[in-house]
């Protein structure tokens, strides 16, 4: 069993192998073959992960570090590339590989159509190369034994995110030639880099105080390090978390990231990469546990993000945008959880969220494809309607409606996902979200309140989405002709739906499989089962009926409310959102994401560009280059030479030169000019001047 641990490098190298095969030979392979290779690479990774899990299970969760290679070694700095196999990392590996594999399979079908709609079939190959690369990077992230290896993966997934958001880099989401997608990709990368900057600072501080960035050594030394340093490190890390897990104030890239193909949104921007921040905090639990102040800040950031993003989600029309803000919101839940020290709850939600959010996204993708097909159909068969000629946005919920009948499978899958997300018993989301709310209720009331409101909004916007997409009448011809997706798309969805339904089993109250599993890594995990006073005393094995009831009721209430607004009287084509009438400007704010992007643009982005231009044109160009160099240095050269020349002879030059310098100087120069114009007598005079100067000096000295 021990020998199985040595398989761990395969989690990285299998996807790498897959991407190499696809990159080098993909050009001559069929789409099916490419997809199969990529999926197989991912699937084998899953198998390896399972084997690792089995090995851990057999070894009673005893963590293992598998040395792999030396990387950077200078003086006291020694950063090897070691793999860490413990319950936490294997959990992540399993999540990544299982969701990843399913999405790979799904993508074979999805991308087959997508590349045809976008008219660039060659990119199919590229997609799977990038996807495998992503799996590899994500695996590096979760399997590394040091903060630096984690950082390598951290940046690597950022790169993949960039590549995949910008997958259709030469167009916008509607396929028109545009900078939009590439802008989104760039934005994602840069914002992530801001986070990375924080991570980097954390790493630097850590090295000089802990003398290492290996997890084991860092955690062992934690008790001996001043609290202020740990606070600094944890807060720097929080910047990184905010970037990667899309928390306030760095969440702005994630909605834009929806520019990527839907499988990408599902895999990277919902299920896996964005949860890396949660993983980081969970991984760093000894550090965070040592500084309660940092914990509170983290929890607060998470909670505020959860609510803030949820409000925005309410005002979105794009099916994926709603899910994107929902993701931000759910990440807020997770971050709040790990911030509070409820590491297991956070991880639990991470896992369930991966299932149901992937499900939602992929279903949304299916919906979009359905509409595309419908639109495509119109273009070829519908001579009656001119509608298809205008720009058609297959992701806009205002173009949908009544899809329940056209796409029944997708509808049911979507429903499962929605219920899981809304936290309805007994779907997976219920269990995990409830655990978080319970922890919040125990620790910070303010966090609890924020999260509960967020949960209410969550149910509401999901309800709104269901009514708008699947119920009522079609608001667009394309929706009328929408077609159900093929098996290759729906089968993985069914698997995910199954997981979304049953995910709660992982950590049922009283059983706490996940808690015990993670306990081997996160020693504090069990402590959070402790009892506290008040109504919370009713808790039974991690379930508090009051908390559960409150959240369930709120969720149901929200869904009912959404039915009132959207389901009872379905939206008509061109009709304004009913909330707009009720909420007025508040809804405008929600619609426009509270103008955060605009604010950032005005406050930072444009200023950065302005300052850059200023530095380049004024400081570097006009000052350093033109003034200091050309004027001061070169100009003095020329000036000196001109003066020297003019003094002796060049009468035209001197005029030209002195024209700008005013009458006085001009007159003086004119007299000087007449005096010293290079005649032999003037030369002699110069000699004499030299003589009297020397004599004068020698005599008077």
């Amino acid at each position, binding site marked *: 069993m021990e020998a199985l641990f040595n398989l761990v490098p395969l989690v990285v190298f299998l996807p790498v192998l897959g991407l190499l095969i696809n990159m080098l030979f993909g050009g001559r392979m069929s789409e099916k073959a490419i997809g199969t290779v990529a999926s197989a690479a991912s699937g084998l990774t899953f198998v390896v992960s399972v084997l690792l899990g089995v090995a851990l299970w057999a070894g009673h969760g005893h963590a293992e570090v598998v040395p792999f*290679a*030396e*990387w*950077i*070694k*200078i*003086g006291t*700095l020694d950063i090897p590339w070691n793999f860490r196999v413990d319950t936490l990392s294997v959990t992540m590996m399993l999540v990544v590989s299982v969701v990843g594999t399913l999405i790979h399979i799904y993508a074979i079908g999805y991308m087959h159509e997508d590349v045809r709609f976008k008219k*660039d079939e060659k990119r199919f190959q590229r997609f799977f190369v990038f996807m495998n690369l992503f799996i590899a990077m994500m695996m590096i992230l979760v399997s590394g034994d040091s903060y*630096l290896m984690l*950082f*390598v993966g951290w*940046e*690597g997934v950022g*790169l993949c995110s*960039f590549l995949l958001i*910008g997958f259709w*880099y*030469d*167009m916008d989401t509607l396929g028109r*030639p*545009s*900078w939009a*997608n*590439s*802008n989104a*990709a*760039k934005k994602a*990368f*840069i914002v992530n*880099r*801001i986070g*990375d*900057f924080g991570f*980097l*600072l954390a*790493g*630097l*501080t850590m*090295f*000089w105080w802990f003398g290492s960035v290996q997890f084991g050594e860092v955690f062992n030394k934690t008790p001996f390090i001043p609290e202020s340093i740990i606070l600094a490190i944890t807060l720097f890390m929080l910047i990184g978390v905010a970037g990667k897990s899309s928390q306030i104030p760095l969440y702005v890239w994630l909605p834009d990231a929806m520019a990527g193909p839907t499988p990408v949104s599902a895999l990277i921007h919902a299920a896996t990469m964005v949860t890396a921040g949660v993983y980081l905090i969970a991984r760093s639990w000894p550090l965070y546990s040592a500084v309660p102040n940092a914990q509170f800040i983290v929890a607060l950031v998470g909670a505020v993000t959860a609510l803030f993003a949820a409000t925005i989600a309410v005002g979105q029309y794009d099916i994926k945008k709603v899910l994107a803000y929902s993701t931000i919101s759910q990440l807020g839940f997770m971050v709040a959880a790990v911030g509070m020290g409820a590491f297991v709850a956070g991880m639990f939600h991470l896992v369930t969220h991966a299932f149901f959010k992937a499900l939602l996204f992929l279903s949304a993708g299916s919906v979009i494809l359905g509409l595309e097909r419908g639109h495509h159909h119109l273009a070829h068969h519908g001579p009656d309607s001119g509608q298809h000629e205008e720009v058609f946005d297959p992701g806009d919920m205002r173009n949908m409606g009544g899809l329940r009948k056209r796409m029944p499978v997708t509808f049911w899958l979507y429903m499962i996902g929605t219920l899981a997300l809304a936290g309805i018993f007994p779907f997976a989301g219920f269990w995990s979200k409830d655990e978080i709310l319970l922890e919040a209720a125990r620790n910070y009331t303010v966090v609890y309140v924020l999260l509960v409101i967020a949960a209410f909004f969550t149910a509401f916007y999901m309800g709104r989405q269901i009514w708008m997409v699947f119920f009522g009448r079609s608001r667009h011809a394309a929706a009328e002709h929408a077609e159900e997706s093929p098996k290759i798309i729906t089968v993985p969805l069914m698997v995910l739906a199954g997981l979304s339904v049953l995910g709660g089993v992982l950590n049922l109250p009283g059983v706490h499989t996940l808690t015990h599993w993670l306990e081997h890594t996160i020693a504090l995990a069990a402590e959070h089962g402790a009892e506290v006073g008040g109504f919370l005393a009713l808790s039974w094995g991690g379930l508090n009926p009051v908390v559960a009831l409150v959240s369930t009721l709120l969720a149901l209430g929200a869904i009912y409310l959404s039915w009132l607004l959207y389901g009872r009287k379905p939206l008509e084509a061109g009709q304004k959102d009913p909330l707009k009438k009720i909420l007025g400007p508040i809804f405008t704010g929600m619609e426009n994401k509270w103008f955060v992007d605009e604010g950032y643009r005005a406050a930072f982005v444009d200023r*950065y*560009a302005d*300052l*850059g*231009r200023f*530095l*380049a*044109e004024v*400081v*570097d160009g006009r000052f*350093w*280059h033109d003034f*200091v*160099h050309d004027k001061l240095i070169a100009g003095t050269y020329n000036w000196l030479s001109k003066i020297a020349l003019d003094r002796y002879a060049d009468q035209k030059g001197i005029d030209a030169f002195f024209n700008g310098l005013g009458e006085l100087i001009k007159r003086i120069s004119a007299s000087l000019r007449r005096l010293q114009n290079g005649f032999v007598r003037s030369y002699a005079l110069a000699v004499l001047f030299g003589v009297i100067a020397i004599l004068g000096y020698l005599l008077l000295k």
Partner: protein
Amino acid sequence: MDFLTNPLNLVTFSPLVGVLLLLVLPSGRKNLLRWTALLVSLLTFGLSIWMLTQFQAAEAVAPGELHLGLSLPWIQVAGWNITYAMGVDGLSILLVLLTTFLTPLSILSTWTAVEERVKDFMLFFLLLEVGMLGVFLAQDLFLFYIFWEFTLVPMYFLIGIWGGPRRIYAAIKFFLYTMAGSILMLLAILYIGIQAGTFSVPELITALPGLYASGVIALGAQMLLFLAFTAAFAIKVPMWPLHSWLPDAHVEAPTAGSVILAGVLLKMGTYGFIRFNIPMFPDAAVKAAPWIALLAVIGIIYGAWVCYAQKDVKKLVAYSSVSHLGFVMLGLFALNAQGMEGAILQMINHGLSTGALFLLVGMIYEQTHTREIAVYGGLWKITPIFGSIMLVVSLSSMGLPGLNGFVGEFTILLGAFGSQAIGSPWFAGVAAAGVIMAAIYILYMFQKMFLGPEGSIVEEIKKHGHALRDLNWREIVIMVPLLVFIFWIGLYPKPFFDLMAPAVEKLVEALPQIVH
């Protein structure tokens, strides 16, 4: 005979074989000339690999020392004590290899780019290689200065004859700026020579502490000497605010010139710091460290910021050098093993990445004859290989983990963050923001040229009856070795660190302890 069989001499002067051959070859046979130059430069590269094996053998016996050296009396009259001293150690071996590595690639890149006066071009190029190798191998200040100044001449011609529209301005500016620094160094060299009675660097390093201790050279004089050397090297690097010559020179230089300029010539400046300034004036170096770090950090931020506003892609790459070299300087003056080793590695990295960037820019320029970023766009679709290579190189330049740039930058930041000499983590903290800014300008460049809809240049080219083509085999052959090293250093930098580690550690140990 020693002189002729010494590996260092063989490496340094082997390009002269090409010079002689070129002189006798007819100037009309352009391909013959190109092949001659290429083969000779490959010969030099081969010799340098052979030298590397010998170096490693010697290093196994005496780690951290100068190896393969020879020291022959040269001018030993009239009170002069000048030796012809060469030697290689961990500080220089990588730079020597970088030089011999980049030269053939650059020559190969001129195959179609240089059609005019091919013979002269190749002549100057090989002469330049001699000069650069000499700079890295000379162990006598006099000899070093000769090589140092000599490199100016061929580079000046390369820019001035084969450069862009403002080539003369740029060439003269390049020459004068660099010379301005080096003449002050000349005085310092002479002063040291007079005081210590020798110009041999190893001897000076052992002799100078005694002179400092006995007060023959006071601390103030040491500071001045340090500053004089700094003037020469800082201009070459170039450190902010002495960088004004760089964009001009880079923009106007022909591609191969830019590659060598960025790849090797700038490194002569940073190399000078580590070879001369730090070991010869340790007290001054320690005192100056925070100030140099400050300038370095300003350079990092400033360079990156200015990059973002560039409209000319070559200029952008040029300014990125200011930023990158800022990292190198920061690492060097961290004066600890991490910083310095990172800095040396980063010198190599910059040579590879920026060299590759210039090569790539040159390859597209050859087709489009414009460097204006705005006219490009969507190239990745039209030229996928080109775009992909560009992406990798760009990512390397912005320090993505797994590629070479990260290893250097990270170790530099790490060294600088905890440096006793710099004294404050703030420098490294601010410099780390350069990581964000690098992403901003690199992605800006990559996006505007390779992503997005097709740029106007595509139409423009079509109008002239051409089409943009992807890289041809020759160009791919140029890029592949660079990519290999970009990945190699990124994934497994150990061999590179191993080469320099003993020498750097020796250097660090010799520095005075800093007491705050």
